[in-house]
């Protein structure tokens, strides 16, 4: 009982730590990557000077994230005389909390056996094993969508309660855009659900550790390359980032639905956006890129296509899986930032017609094709 509590408290601390670190580091990655893409030197001004010396630690500008956080914490917490103070106060948290909660159902590693990992604790833990996942639920994917639906309400509440026309327009745009793309996102994932026959994210990852056609790793992206593209596009639109950042288009709406927010309340919106980049990375990795496993890898080691196997000790498997998952997330995040600095912003009517007239029919067609294929190969696909 206490062992369970300890392990899950550790998991939760790990998850929060990882998400907060990603949220901070991604602000820097975004700047640095923009600089690299534009052939500039980039974020290199913030530094920490060691006390009583002239040694300045620049560290490639990594302290910019720290400086941002500090600035938001000490800025004036401006409170407008809004129409609805309660909705105004609650909105940033309604946006921020669900983004963190989504990570609860994402598996970030295989099975952890504390007794095998630390032999000195074997007596205390007995033969208990824990999947490296905060909540192993059979409805994992549904819970992801349930939580990401709550975020929409937060954005709309923020825009509405600010009693500002820019905020209001931003809230309207956020609401319509997120509703449209949430639908597309759900439809793209349905194809994967058909193939794997489950909505449990842990089982989905395990099913991706085999091979398909003899040599390709059985990743979702090879089963559903089309759905993977659509999913990533819809997810970026859901996160309201360029080229879909109409709800907060600074040249049209100041800052959109969070115009009236300042200091750390505005920081929560920004932080939620950056954490969601990481969450999208984690979801994309879990659904399409084989989750925490390297190609041909499973919980006991590697099993290469030629029948060659390499056994690994439990400790190495756990460490490899944790690291591989983080690296995959970081790569997907970097790809999202690449898109963010490459494409210009859509016009607003184009965003909505793109969702309803282009992506939705494609997602439906993909679903129908998948259903027909799964039906005709019944039993041989999974």
């Amino acid at each position, binding site marked *: *009982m*206490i062992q369970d*509590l300890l392990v899950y408290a550790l998991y939760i601390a790990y998850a929060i730590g990882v998400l907060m670190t990603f949220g901070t580091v991604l602000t820097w990655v975004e700047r640095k990557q923009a600089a690299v893409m534009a052939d500039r030197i980039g974020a290199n001004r913030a530094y920490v000077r060691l006390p009583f010396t002239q040694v300045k630690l620049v560290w490639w500008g990594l302290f910019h994230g720290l400086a941002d956080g500090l600035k938001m914490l000490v800025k004036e917490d401006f409170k407008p005389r809004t*129409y*609805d103070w*309660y*909705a105004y106060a*609650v909105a940033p948290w309604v946006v921020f909390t669900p983004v963190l909660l989504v990570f609860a159902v994402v598996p970030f590693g295989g099975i952890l056996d504390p007794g095998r990992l630390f032999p000195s604790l074997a007596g205390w833990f007995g033969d208990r094993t824990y999947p490296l996942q905060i909540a192993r*639920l*059979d*409805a994992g994917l*549904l*819970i992801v*969508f*349930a*939580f*990401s*639906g*709550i975020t*929409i*309400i937060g954005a*709309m*509440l923020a*825009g*509405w*309660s600010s009693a500002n026309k820019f905020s*209001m327009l931003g*809230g*309207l745009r956020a*609401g*319509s855009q997120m*509703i449209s793309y*949430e639908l597309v996102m759900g439809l793209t994932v349905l194809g994967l659900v058909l193939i794997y026959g489950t*909505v449990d994210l842990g089982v989905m990852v395990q099913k991706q550790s085999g091979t398909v056609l003899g040599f390709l790793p059985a990743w979702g992206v090879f089963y559903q390359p089309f759905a993977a593209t659509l999913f990533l596009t819809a997810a970026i639109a859901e996160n309201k980032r360029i080229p879909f950042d109409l709800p907060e288009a600074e040249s049209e709406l100041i800052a959109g639905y969070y115009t009236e927010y300042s200091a750390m309340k505005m920081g929560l919106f920004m932080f939620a956006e950056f954490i969601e980049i990481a969450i999208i990375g984690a979801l994309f990795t879990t659904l399409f890129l084989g989750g925490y496993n390297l190609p041909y890898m499973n919980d006991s080691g590697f099993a290469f296509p030629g029948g060659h196997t390499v056994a690994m000790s439990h400790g190495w498997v756990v460490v490899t899986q944790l690291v591989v998952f983080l690296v995959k997330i970081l790569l997907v995040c970097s790809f999202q930032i690449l898109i963010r600095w490459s494409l210009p912003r859509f016009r607003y009517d184009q965003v909505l017609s793109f969702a309803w007239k282009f992506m939705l029919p494609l997602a439906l067609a993909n679903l129908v094709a998948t259903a027909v294929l799964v039906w005709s190969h019944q039993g041989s696909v999974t």
Partner: protein
Amino acid sequence: MIESLLQHLDTLLLYVFAACALVGAVLMLVLRQPMRVAMALISTMVFLGGIYGLLGVHFIAAFQVLIYVGAVMVFMVYVIMLLEIRESAGMARYSALVVPGVVATALFVGALGYGVWHGYPALIRAAAGTRFGIHQFSISFLTEYWLHFELTSVLLVAAVVAALAVIKVSRRAHG
């Protein structure tokens, strides 16, 4: 100490969630501003989802939040935001249909209460059975209970029409 607390954590959380859901439901009936009403309803739905989660049916909890909060309430908040209903709703403008409405509600609740009370041992037996997974749920939902589900939607439409009849909707007031 901690062991016994952990064993009773489920019960404790159940009471907390139930109390919060009840408070949200009461607030929804008492408050007058549309957006506040919507927010109270959202909190009730989320806490109900928490109760389902505690009972071990996580997919029902997910459906509760996904459908009621993620779809229904998002649209309600969207509409309230679009219409910018800023004034509180008017007081005491029930039509004469409220009397049969209250009588029918009392009868309906009475019948439900009677049925639940007499079916209680069967409910206990069902709850003590095997774990109810999403696989099992999907099969029995689409084979046995699809008619009940469709009938519920008819009932909901009837409820919406009845609500419109009970409160006097004046089309001309406020444009």
